[in-house]
Structure formats: C-alpha cells, structure tokens
C-alpha cells in the first residue's frame, strides 16, 4: 500500500490546487457581504454543466470555453447580487438571518432546476488533456500525473495570481479590502458597497463556474454534486480562518490530500465524514482556523 502514497499525495496536491480558487472567491464574498453563500456548490455545478453542453454542441475543448463561462457567470452573479444586497439591507426581520435563508433557498431551487434539466446521471467532460499523462519513473518515483490535473493546477495558480493582483494592486481591491474590514467606514471613504459587492459576487460566481468545468474534466459532474462542494468550500474557509485569505491555499491543499487519500486507501464515500470530523476538531480546538487568524 505504501507505494501508492506518492501518487495519493500528488493527486491530492493537484486537486487541492483547484479548490484554492473556489475558496478564495468564496472567502472574498463572505468578506464583502458578511453572508455565507450556500449556493456555492450549485454555481460550480451550473458551470460544469454549461461546459459539458458547450463541449457537446461545438466539439471544442472545454479549456477554450473557460473565458466564455466566466463572462456568462460573471453577468449572472452581477445580476443576482443586488437581490441579496436588498435582503441584507432590509429593515424588516433580521437581515443577516434572512440573507442566510435566502442563499439556502437559492441553493434548493438551483438543485431542483438542475435535477429537472440534467437528471440524476453523472458524466464527465471530455478534454484533449484527459488522455495524456506524465510519468515520473525516470526520477525513481512511481507517480503518474494526468495532464488534465496539471492544467488544473496551472489554472489555479493563474487565477490566484490574478486575484492577488486585483486585491493588492488596484483601487478596486483596496475598496474590497476596506469593505471587508469595516463596511461603514469604507462607505464613508467613498467605497460603493453596492457596486463593489456586485463585482465581487460576479467574480466569485464566474470563478466557481470555471472551476466547475475543471472539476468536471478531472472528476465527474452530476446535478447533485453541489452539496459536496458547498461543504468543501466551507471546510477550506473554516480551516483557513474566516476571512484570512493567506490561510486558504494550505487549507485547500489539505482538503485535496484528505480526499485523495480517502479515494485510494479507504472508501471514497467516507470522505464527507472525514471532512466533517476534521472540521469538528478544528472548530472545537481553534475556531479561528488552523492559523488562529480568522475573524
């Protein structure tokens, strides 16, 4: 069994790399809106299916569609966010609770729509990269790296760098960080919470949808995949510490490792249980994340 370990670790790191993208975007949205989006897994699922059908109709490689999917879902997110903003700035009831309930309702509705439209079957998206793989036998390791997973990691690194640049080097990013720190003070300094929120939500939905396509190429897609990824996104954000972006990559890699180790050594259907047990222990011992730097 031990000879499989390098393979498990490699798979885990490559998969975890992809989770970084979802978790950073998810974390950003939480920072700006102060509400957890329960529909994160459903956005991933919608993106995956859009990629699947675009590939089916045009026959082109799904990797080519990534920008198209980003643009479509950016627009969707940009249009949906004002509704969430309206719920959050309501004067009746408890807006914070209502925001949570609202995204929960969206998630249920999206799942129902997807099950109606796509059925219960699971599929995978064919890509030119799914065939090839690199063998590391030459340097003495029995590890195979599928090209598609490597491309996934390259995508994850690119997205992370772009987001890093956006957040740290642009005025927009400054506004986002200010909003995350203190909403009212940011508003007084001239940050338009509404518009910035829409952009951030759009970016987040766009990235989630693109990542969904990659996950569809690497693993599989199905109308019920959303649940699992919502839990994964939450796992990464809690492990990193809510709102502590620097912790996200480590937490995402850990998630990838847990998942691949369970796939190889144990029953894959126990992954969710393992994820939950780790989550429980972290929340019990260090509720502010692995690094203790969350909010």
């Amino acid at each position, binding site marked *: 069994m031990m000879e499989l370990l390098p393979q498990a670790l490699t798979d885990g790191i490559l998969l975890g790399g992809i989770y970084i993208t979802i978790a950073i975007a998810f974390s950003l949205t939480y920072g700006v809106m102060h509400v957890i989006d329960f529909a994160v897994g459903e956005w991933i699922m919608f993106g995956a299916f859009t990629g699947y059908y675009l590939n089916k109709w045009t026959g082109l490689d799904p990797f080519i569609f990534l920008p198209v999917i980003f643009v479509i879902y950016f627009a969707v997110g940009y249009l949906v966010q004002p509704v969430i903003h309206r719920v959050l700035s309501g004067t009746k009831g408890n807006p914070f609770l209502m925001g949570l309930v*609202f995204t*929960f309702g969206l998630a249920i509705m999206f799942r129902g729509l997807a099950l109606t439209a796509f059925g219960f079957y699971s599929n995978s998206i064919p890509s030119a990269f799914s065939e090839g793989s690199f063998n590391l036998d030459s340097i003495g390791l029995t590890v195979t790296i599928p090209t598609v997973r490597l491309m996934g990691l390259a995508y994850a690194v690119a997205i992370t760098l772009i987001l890093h640049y956006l957040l740290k080097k642009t005025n927009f990013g400054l506004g986002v960080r200010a909003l995350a720190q203190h909403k009212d003070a940011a508003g007084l300094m001239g940050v338009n919470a509404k518009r910035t929120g829409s952009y951030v939500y759009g970016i987040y939905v766009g990235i989630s949808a693109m990542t969904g396509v990659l996950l569809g190429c690497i693993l599989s897609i199905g109308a019920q995949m959303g649940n699992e990824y919502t839990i994964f996104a939450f*796992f990464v954000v809690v492990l990193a510490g809510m709102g502590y972006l620097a912790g996200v990559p480590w937490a995402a890699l850990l998630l990838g490792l847990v998942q691949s180790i369970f796939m190889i050594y144990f029953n894959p259907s126990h992954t969710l249980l393992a994820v939950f047990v780790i989550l429980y222990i972290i929340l019990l011992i260090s*509720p502010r994340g692995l690094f203790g730097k969350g909010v």
Partner: protein
Amino acid sequence: MKTSRGAAILAIITAALLILPLVVHDTFVLRVLTEGIMWIGLAIAFDVIAGYTGYLNFGHGAFFGIGAYTIGILMMQAHLPFWVALPLGGLAAALTALIAGIPTLRLKGAYFAIATWALSRAIQQLALNVEFTGGPDGMRLEAFLNPLFFYYLMLITVGVIFLILWYLLERAPFGLKLKAIREDEEGAKALGLNPTMLKMQSFILSAIPTGILGGIYAYWITFIDPSSTLGDLVSDQAVVMVVFGGMGTLFGPALGAILIFAFKTIFWAYLSDFQLLYLIILGALIAISVIFIPNGLWGTLVKRKAVARPQQKPEPASEPAALSAVAVPEEGN
C-alpha cells in the same frame, strides 16, 4: 389577537381535532392529518433555535432521522418496547445537539448554519455506510397498524410540545432571554446572560421534540431509510414552513406547516410525476418569502404592529444600522 379569544379559537381547534376521527373514518384523511400534525411539531421545534434564538439549523432533519433510527434500532435489535425506546430517541437527538453545539454555538450564526447542515449530510452518509442501520436498504419495523392510535399519539405529543414551548418561550423568562440573544448577543452578555449556555439549552430544546416525533414517525410508517428520514427534504421543508409562516413565533410556523403540508399533499396527489418541481417551488418560496414577507405570513398579516423594530446589525464589525439611522423606526415591540 386578544389572549382570551386566541385561547378560545385554539380550544375549538383542539376539540375539533380530538373528535374528528369519530366522525371521519377514512384512513387516508387520518393519515394526512397525522402527518400534518407531525409537521406542525417539527416546524415549531425548528423555530425554537432559528426564530427565537436567531441561529439557523439547516440540518434539523438530522434530529428527526436520529430519533427515527434510534427507535428502529432499539425496537428491532434490542427488542425494547416502544414506550421505552421513544424517550431514548429524544435523548439521542439531545446528545447529538450537545455534541454538535459545543464547537459551533460559541461562534457566529453563519458557522452554525453551515456546520449543522454539513452534520446532517455527514449523518446521512454514516447511515448509508454502516451495518446496523441497514445501509441504503433501510430498516423495517414491527408493524403496528392502528391509524387511530397514531393519530391520537401524534396529536397529544404535538399538543404537549406546543404547550411546553409556549410556556417556556412566551410566558417564562427563558423566551425573553433567547430573544435578547437574537437581538444583540453582546448586549445580552452585558446584562449577565450566558449566551452560549442559553443557545445550547434552546438547541437541545429544539432537538428533543424533533427526535421524539422522528421516533413516532418510524413506528407509524414502519419503514425508514436514509433518504426518507435523513434526507435534506425534511430540513428544507422545516425551513420553508418557518420562513413562510413567520419566524420567532409559535403560530407562524404552525400556519406555515399547515399551508405547506396541504400544498405538498395536493401536489403529491396530482403531480407525483413532477417531484423535482416541488424542490424548485420550495426553494423559490423561501427566496420569495425572504424578499417580500421577511416576517412571514403570521408576522405580516396578524402581528403587523408588533414586529416593527430597529434594523439589526449583521456583524459586530459592521453596522449598517448606522447608515440608515434616519430611517430606523422608534423602538417598538
């Protein structure tokens, strides 16, 4: 609504429900009523933690399933009588609430909401994968086919649950303490309350009735499997009933439960080929209620005056209330 008039209406409804089986002998009607009454119980139990305390438990169905499975396992494998197993079902749900609550109830509501939801998914996975629950095949209980018995058992159980919760939440100081936590946790702390302890008590108070109802359901339906008792539909329906009916009251969730359950029964009877449409409608109903009637039907129609209150701050770190301070109405309750 004046208390005396409200009490009179409730007494009439209770009396009508008590004598109804003597008039109506149709088993289908009894069956529908029994399940409807069960949903009223589930919805008001969910509202204890969600509406009164302000902590959303999106995995409410887990307690229901745990209650059902506890009774199933104790009756079929340990051969305990139903009356011994039933309280143990409530106890199992309470223990689950305790274990799940310790790490999550210290934290903000968002953690709690998603952690309870993840817990319910994890418990479903567990039930699918271990031996003693029968896995995906589910579990068959000894059949005790007496619709009248279950009708009265459900009615009396839900009635007792309602009375206990009504006393604790609307008459005893406990309800006020929970509302204080919902409105301003820091403020409640400053008044000498222990929010973590109170939240735990309300979580357990919400879990016990749910577990017991799950137990009765298992014995009544005689067959349980992970998707019917631990699936997300139970939690989703509880959320929709409470949000649509009106959070933070006892009558709101009851009203929501009656309407949603009636809708579900009609939908299932005529459109059983479109079960997925039901899921879409549930989700849409949650979203629409949140946007248009954030106080729910009960809060909007019946308690219109009583619910005007200042805007809440979502987080200690950010206070949107300050931005719209001009628009905030005077303190009212």
